[in-house]
């Protein structure tokens, strides 16, 4: 087991290099670079930039060098000093921009994940145990409703209702007075007051699919002979359900941790933009559109690292909870 973990960790190193290089190339693939985008932005506000200034800008940003050199410089900075480069657009170190937003992203992601699981798992189990009951049909209907409604639409509707009917301050994660304030009890409460809306929106769409998965997993396990054995022993229905089929039906969820982590960054872009949330996703989108390559590259690298770490975590957890994997 230990050998397996070490091997996996070692494998992560070349994978990360390969992926970061690929990401770097991909970001540069569209015609033009940040300067082109920058000039275009200026041109739209009737400012004209001559060729000389453009060349100067390119030189300053190091964009005139071959791509490989740019990549090596960038990756060298990360490996040696944790320096992810400078964001062209924000004129700030990338690391400062990213970590500020990552913390809030994490809060939002964990909150919506917990909300999703807390709603979906019990409903999924109920739907499976009471298959084709009225309750099952009701939840199924709700499920497909949640699955098919676009989350940005739900965001708009909820924002409208909250703002117009209840006079709530919606959009963002803080009220204006706390936006730049340092952390305090008041700011925490303010965050909680704002958090419910994005959490609810994100939970509705993912709850739906999770209920279906949980229901299907349970339906696979319920007719298994070991459930009958447990019943024949005289266990109560609740005890046998939670001890045997539920335990095994949860295994596939552990596998999904692998793609939950990268979702922290790239997921929920649309909702974050509609609700004007200060999370990582809108920043990633913006950096890609502006060809702000060090910022975008840092995000892509982070996503990849989280994917790899996530799959390692789920593999280790699976081995811990399932003796068949651990011992065979």
């Amino acid at each position, binding site marked *: 087991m230990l050998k397996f973990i070490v091997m996996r960790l070692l494998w992560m190193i070349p994978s990360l290099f390969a992926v970061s290089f690929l990401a770097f190339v991909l970001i540069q693939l569209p015609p033009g670079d940040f300067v082109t985008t920058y000039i275009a932005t200026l041109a739209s506000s009737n400012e004209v930039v001559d060729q000389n200034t453009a060349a100067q800008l390119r030189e300053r940003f190091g964009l005139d060098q071959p791509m490989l050199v740019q990549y090596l410089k960038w990756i060298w900075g990360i490996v040696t000093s944790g320096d992810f480069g400078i964001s062209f657009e924000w004129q700030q170190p990338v690391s400062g921009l990213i970590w500020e937003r990552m913390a809030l992203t994490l809060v939002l992601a964990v909150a919506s994940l917990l909300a999703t699981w807390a709603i979906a798992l019990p409903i999924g189990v109920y739907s499976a145990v009471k298959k084709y009951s009225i309750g099952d049909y009701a939840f199924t209907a709700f499920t497909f409703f949640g699955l098919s409604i676009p989350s940005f639409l739900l965001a708009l509707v909820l924002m409208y209702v909250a703002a117009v009917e209840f006079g709530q301050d919606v959009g963002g994660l803080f009220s204006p007075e706390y936006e730049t304030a340092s952390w305090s009890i008041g700011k925490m409460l303010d965050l909680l007051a704002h958090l419910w809306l994005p959490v609810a929106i994100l939970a509705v769409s993912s709850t739906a699919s999770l209920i279906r998965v949980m229901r299907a997993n349970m339906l696979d396990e319920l007719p298994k*002979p*070991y459930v009958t054995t*447990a*019943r*024949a022993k005289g266990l109560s*229905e609740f005890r046998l359900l939670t001890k*045997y089929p539920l335990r095994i039906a949860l295994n596939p969820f552990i596998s999904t941790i692998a793609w939950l982590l990268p979702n922290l960054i790239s997921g929920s872009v649309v909702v974050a933009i509609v609700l004007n949330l200060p999370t990582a996703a809108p920043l990633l989108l913006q950096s890609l559109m502006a060809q702000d390559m060090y910022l975008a590259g840092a995000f892509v690298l982070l996503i990849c690292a989280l994917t790899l770490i996530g799959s390692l975590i789920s593999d280790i957890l699976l081995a811990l909870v*399932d*003796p068949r994997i651990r011992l065979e």
Partner: protein
Amino acid sequence: MTDILTITPRKPLLEVKNLVTEFPLRTGIFKAVDDLSFSIEPGKTLCVVGESGSGKSVTARSILQIIDAPGRIASGSIVLNRQDGTSLDLAKLDPRGRAIRSVRGRDIAMIFQEPMSSLSPVHTVGDQITEVLRLHLNMSKAEARKEAISLLRQVEIPNPDKAIDRYAFQYSGGMRQRAMIAMALACKPQLLIADEPTTALDVTTQAEILDLISRLQKAHGMAVLFITHDMGVVAQIADDVLVMHHGVAKEYGPVDEIFHSPQDPYTRMLIGSVLKLEQKAEIRLARPPLDTSAEPILDIRGLSMQFGDMKALDEVSISLLPGETLGIVGESGSGKTTMGRSIMRLYDPSAGEIRYRRADGKTIDLARIDGAELKAARRELRMVFQDPFGSLNPRMTVSQVIGEPLLVNGIAKGKELDERVCHLMEQVGLDPATRERYPHAFSGGQRQRIGIARAITLNPRVIVADEATSALDVSVRFQVLDLLMRLQDQLGLAYIFISHDIGVIRYMCDRVGVMYRGKLVEVGEADKVCNAPDHAYTQALISAIPRPDPRDRDRSRRFRYVEPTAASMAVITNGGAAR
């Protein structure tokens, strides 16, 4: 056993009266058990026999009210007379209520057919045994653990104090069923319901488990309701027998009466089918003797197959004559299936030769060839599989299944293909009008016929049948065996017939090879090997087969084969060398 009978009043332990268990379906109500009455005396064994779909399992589950949804007990009574004099009608209880739950596992316990899937894959065996003890006897964790170890010792599991912390998948098949029995006996129930507990086991393991159950039964004065489709087992263990067919009791009486003066034609058919396996098939008796001077169609020499550290096949040498049926018998894990698959080149053998004589007289080594040559050879060597459900693609119609070999080999298509398929279906006794249906519309026996039709589609010369009839009911088994023999006469096929069932081998085969741990320990004429085997392992195997006669219950003649030292082994293998 007689002491117990004198102590307890002559009141049956369990009285089932006019039991009806039904399953509401879309098309109406299906009665899985219809007006069934029987009773079980304390300390006695009642065997319920019947083929698949006879309702015997549903009967057992009705007693504990653990019928799979949407089944329910519609009427009738199941009265349990406890030792303390109280009586309880189980049929009236709420299936989820406290009252029935206190009966389950404590007064009446149950063991099942598939010990692997009947135990949780992610909990230790000990966890599952202590659970019952803690539930019904309110034991502390430490007490329950101690008791569980003692139970595992009673069912003869080696090193019980270590085995208790292992998982089911770390046990062998026989040990799993022992663990199940330990779990069932934890609270010393008055009645043990055993639902086909030995069907998934080898004959030698089956014999040991049956011995174990009857020993524990005597020790605890426990009654046993034993469900099986195997008349041999019934003859060996039953006091009373209930024969079921389509949910109805066909015959109910003492075992001796059932076997020696059966009244019902269905019972007679069941017993007849077992007795039939005691001798050669009529079709084979009518045949002229096999030409033994012919060149063998398959000549296997020194075939070995290594899986990691495990030698699944160890220098196996055997030959197959044209038109011959060669049986390969052995327990699970003996390498018989590996051998069949190696011949088909589904596996690449690690060493040895499989020399196949083609129709033009040229010999090729199947272990070496590949590409077009292997493809050509596979047209002439075909396979029939064990599981008639798993081996047919549920999304293909029967005509697609049967016609596929013709289509992929570019032999026929369109109308010609359709005609060939119709003809093949007639050959295997299926109605060609049903060819556009999907496999689920067919019964097990019919599906196996489809598998056979698929195998003979390309006019093969050799068919490897791997446990081709094991999953079938006895009454259907003969039809399929007879069909195979008829096709052999019509098409001049040679069969390699892999089976764990000596009876089927005796009925079907000319010669038999006995496999044990990857080695071929004995080869000889079927009559000789089945009736007077030379090798000690074969003798042990034959001794473990339950005789279908309740008057012949001598357990002492059974013995377990212990592998002798290398030196004595060599003598035996040389003595029974391949022809």
